[in-house]
């Protein structure tokens, strides 16, 4: 759905050159939620702004829904943007308009008739659960409500793609969860493709099908979250499930990417005559799947064979040193 290849972007600031994007390839599949995580200043916002060409990349190509945006003239680019909704960290609502007026704004831009606008606005406010606040002004809303208005506005012209720039970063944890659940629901029910950027791993864990880790203007890893969880040495896995800080020698970190019903621990103690000592364990929900994480100390003659057996049974096995 979104295919960006070889994106480069540099800013000049007081004679200094800041390379914000240094060769980013981004591939977001139709109907998935794709998260880009990284520290502040990594270039996430720049990347997102290149996807709808708010920022024109110095080099590289941006295709959204098959259309090469970098090749479009200004009128056709504006038309293409009706198909790409955007949600902003600080909401970016018009303070002079009511909730309903804000949601109607992109429809006015797109030339939708007044009657149709009214119908669509009511429908959208229902969808985000703000039907009763239609006549309120943004200043009278809570942060979470403002973001719901922002989402309703972004969805008004029925876009196929939603871009979200730290949509939950200005919100408290409970409100964040509500907004993330809403995004997930929209993704499932409308088939909406969502590209979101965030500095919070928690967001990736909660809603993303795919993810990329961004550092200094490029991706250090990217792919489906379920695949990354199977990849030894994955930074994403490591951030989602930190290793014990001071492990006893012989500790192994086991990740169950798909959960498991097999009693693997008892199988190896019996089959390979090793001792298994559980140090820590957790079961987490990642992108709708249960993922288990176990830190264990395994000792015995046939330790290596036992570890190989676990790996053969679909576990990600990492020695902790």
């Amino acid at each position, binding site marked *: 759905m979104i295919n960006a290849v070889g994106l480069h972007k540099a800013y000049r600031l007081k004679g200094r050159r800041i390379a914000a994007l240094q060769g980013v390839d981004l591939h977001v599949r139709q109907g998935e939620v794709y998260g880009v995580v990284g520290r502040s200043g990594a270039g996430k916002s720049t990347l997102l702004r290149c996807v709808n060409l708010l920022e024109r990349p110095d080099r590289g190509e941006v295709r959204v829904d098959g259309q090469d945006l970098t090749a479009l003239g200004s009128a056709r680019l504006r038309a293409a943007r*009706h198909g790409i909704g955007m949600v*902003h960290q600080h909401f970016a609502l018009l303070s*002079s308009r009511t909730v309903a007026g804000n949601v109607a704004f*992109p429809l006015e831009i797109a030339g939708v008739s007044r009657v149709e606008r009214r119908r669509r606005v009511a429908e959208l406010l229902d969808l985000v659960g703000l039907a009763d606040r239609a006549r309120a002004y943004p200043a009278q809303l809570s942060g979470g409500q403002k973001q719901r208005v922002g989402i309703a506005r972004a969805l008004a012209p029925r876009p196929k793609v939603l871009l979200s720039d730290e949509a939950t970063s200005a919100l408290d944890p409970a409100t964040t969860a509500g907004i993330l659940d809403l995004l997930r629901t929209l993704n499932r029910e409308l088939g909406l493709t969502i590209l979101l950027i965030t500095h919070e791993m928690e967001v990736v864990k909660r809603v993303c099908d795919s993810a990329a880790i961004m550092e200094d203007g490029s991706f250090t890893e990217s792919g489906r979250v379920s695949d990354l969880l199977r990849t030894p040495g994955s930074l994403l896995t490591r951030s989602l499930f930190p290793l014990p800080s001071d492990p006893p020698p012989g500790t192994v970190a086991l990740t169950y990417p798909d959960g498991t019903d097999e009693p693997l621990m008892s199988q190896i103690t019996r089959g390979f005559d090793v001792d298994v000592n559980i140090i820590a364990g957790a079961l987490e929900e990642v992108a709708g799947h249960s993922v288990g994480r176990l830190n264990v100390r395994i000792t015995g003659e046939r330790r290596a064979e036992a570890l190989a057996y676990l790996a053969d049974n679909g576990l990600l096995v990492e020695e902790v040193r």
Partner: protein
Amino acid sequence: MTEWFGELAARWPEMWPVLWLGTLDTLYMVLWSGLVTVAVGLPLGVLLVATDRDGLTPAPVLRAVLGAVVNVGRSLPFIVLMVAVLSLTRFITGTTLGPTAAVVPLSIGAIPFFARLVETALREVDRGVIEASHAMGARKSVIVVKVLLPEALPGLVASLVMTVVTLVSYSAMAGAIGGGGLGDIAIRYGYQRFDDYYLWATVVFLVLMVQLVQSAGDLLVRRVSHR
């Protein structure tokens, strides 16, 4: 003191028609020059913001020229400007005397003042909202009309109020060179004939007028502000 008021009461029937006509002349000058000022100053202010480096349509040369013109207008004392544009005033209105003639220098004096205030008010508009409008596919003219101006409305109204108050005081100065209005009365009756009653009466009228404009303006600002 009571003597002073007694005298005032005795002279009031003779003073009132003069003061009333002066008030109407002042209102006439302020109203028309106010309209001209908004008609020219508002687009000028928009242009100052839009042509700026990070504006909607950056145009450094145009921006520099407009900025310079506005600064010249702002730095001239009104009394000097009035004399300087006398021939232009005659060209436009056919005379240099009376309230209609005064509208020309009043407008020229207030336009740069108002344009700068408009510029400041428009700069207050959240950049994020403008960016969001671009992301929604809005064209620049739509952003000016539907985003920039409505979002800045409270600031724009406050700017207008300030400009009208300034116009009231400028109009009194215009009276000094035959513009008519309350200023004219203060000079002709108060200053040249040493008639303190006229002097103080015009002061009171002007103060009341400014108070009225300011209070009505503040009320309006509060009405249009939804922050």
